[in-house]
């Protein structure tokens, strides 16, 4: 076994793991604040990326397009809160989950209706070339694009962590996550908070959508990225931001390593299910994920 090759695969896996973590983060934010398992995160990601690309096609510069998309995502988030979530308050978690599946169909249809269904190229101005210093000194191929996007993710995660722990809005968010009724009782406006959370999740979807879109082209298959993020979630725990990150790293690295070292023996293509089986094994040991809140069950 070539050790350089091993590290190359490992680093590539870790970097793509950061991207998974970014998608998983969108789920965690919404689940923490409203107890909704938002299946539509993948479609939001697709919608955001597609909107952004289509706006740049009007000839507007990229940063204007990003700002405009942020505004669109904000409106989308507020209307989701108003139209879908508010009437479903106090329904069981499974109904809310089903509603978000319905929502994902709706958003996918809307996105393609507005902007067309063909594959679009997104150029963020970051080159997809190997880093030269690593290549010359250690003979390891690591894409510059992957490193940059991982850095953007890290920045975003840090910013969100600070936002959650240091600002008053963040404290209110955590209060809502902890106990809806108690938060209402001390005067935290629940609906406003949910609007903010969905807005932030929309923003995260935009960033993730841009990075994934630049990598694979903006197309319908972007929605499947969300399915990649699910094992990250069950592994890291639905309620934990650090869990999403570490889960993402574990899934990303092990997925790539498994594909390279186990894949050839069983016919390849195991990337689709390997993360799920891995996450399942973790679940057998810790049923609430690595960092999830411990579930205490009483009669």
């Amino acid at each position, binding site marked *: 076994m070539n050790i350089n090759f091993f590290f190359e695969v490992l680093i590539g896996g870790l970097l793509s793991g950061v991207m998974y973590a970014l998608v998983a983060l969108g789920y965690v934010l919404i689940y923490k604040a409203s107890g909704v398992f938002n299946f539509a995160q993948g479609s939001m990601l697709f919608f955001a990326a597609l909107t952004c690309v289509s706006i740049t096609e009007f000839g507007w510069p990229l940063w204007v397009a990003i700002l405009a998309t942020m505004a669109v995502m904000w409106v989308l988030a507020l209307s989701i809160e108003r139209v879908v979530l508010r009437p*479903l308050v106090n329904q069981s978690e499974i109904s809310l989950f089903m509603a978000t599946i*319905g929502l994902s169909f*709706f958003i996918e*249809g809307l996105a393609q209706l507005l902007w067309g*269904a063909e594959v679009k190229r997104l150029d963020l101005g970051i080159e997809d070339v190997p880093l030269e210093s690593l290549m010359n000194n250690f003979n390891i191929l690591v894409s510059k694009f992957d490193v940059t996007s991982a850095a953007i993710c890290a920045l975003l995660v840090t910013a969100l962590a600070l936002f959650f722990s240091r600002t008053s809005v963040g404290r209110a968010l955590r209060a809502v996550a902890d106990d809806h009724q108690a938060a209402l009782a001390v005067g935290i406006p629940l609906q406003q908070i949910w609007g903010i959370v969905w807005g932030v999740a929309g923003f995260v979807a935009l960033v993730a959508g841009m990075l994934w879109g630049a990598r694979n082209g903006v197309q319908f298959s972007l929605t499947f990225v969300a399915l990649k993020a699910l*094992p990250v979630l*069950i592994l890291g725990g639905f309620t934990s931001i650090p869990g999403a990150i570490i889960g993402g790293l574990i899934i990303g690295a092990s997925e790539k390593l498994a594909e390279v070292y186990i894949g050839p023996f069983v016919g390849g*293509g*195991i990337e689709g299910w390997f993360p799920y089986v891995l996450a399942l094994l973790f679940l057998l040991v810790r*049923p609430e994920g690595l960092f999830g809140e411990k579930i205490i069950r009483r009669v």
Partner: protein
Amino acid sequence: MLYREAGQFKTSYATDGQIFPIRQDRIGIAILLLIAFVLIPQFATPYLLSAILVPFLIFSLAALGQNILTGYAGQVSLGSAAFMAVGAFSAYNFVLRVPGMPILVAFILGGVCAAAVGIVFGLPSLRVRGFYLSASTLATQFFVVWALTKIRWFTNYSSSGVITAQQINLLGYHFDTPELKYLLVLGVVSVLALAAKNMVRSNIGRCWMAIRDMDVAAEVIGIRQLHTKLLAFAVSSFFCGVAGALYAYAYLGTVEPEAYSLDLSFRILFMVMIGGLGSILGSFLGAGFIVLLPIVLNYLAHMLRISTAVASNVELMVFGAMIIFFLIVEPLGLARLWQIAKEKLRLWPFPH
């Protein structure tokens, strides 16, 4: 006036335990079965039979399976299409490899194989609950479809992976016309629906419901969790497996892994949610709704002369919106509407 149980007394245990305690219900179901078995094959067009009624019945069966697991036992699964795939492929392989295998036995064995797979993938349910469980049932979905695509033995080393299902031969008859296929599917679905109805109103069903409502409490009163949950997975997968075999043999005519995608799993989950969780009738109503909705939307799009690309996206949006609408307006599903209608009918036309 017409729908009222006044004057119908229960004088023995047998009458007390009937499936339909009200006479009008019994008459209604008899008429329905008569129409389904005798009139429809006589008068329906081949299009109605093979494009609407056959998929409706097959999906009802799959929805029944999903409803047993999700509605009665409370375990949300996103892998029902995978169990259907297991059923279809095992039936195919049994017919292919065992000479003289009767097709009905192959369907049942397909269901049994699906049940075995269901038990294996149901094991995590003993440890994990809720969303963790539903996300981990996706493992079934991806793993099974991958295995059926990659392991060539299952597809009999066919080069494309798409295989033509064998002819349905039963007691010397070829079931190749739409009418005969419809009757075969209808027969299987009726028998299994009756079995499901009886299961959920017996000891087994009550154990499932106890587990659904609160598994810790159910364990305290002496319901074996392992036994009950795995039985729910097994029975549900059996139903899905038979449905999958019928789907391949009586509807598609081919056996291919791509037909059993995650999308199909979601569809079946929608049927159960829209029809009504924990209701046998609801599985049928939900399946009917989900089968008819795209057809009606397609028809409307055609009427309004919308281009196909736009129409398919609008269809997606309407589909999503309808699901949200139903969840908001009637969270208990179409079966609940039927129940309300029956209660109203009892008083009609003299509400006092």
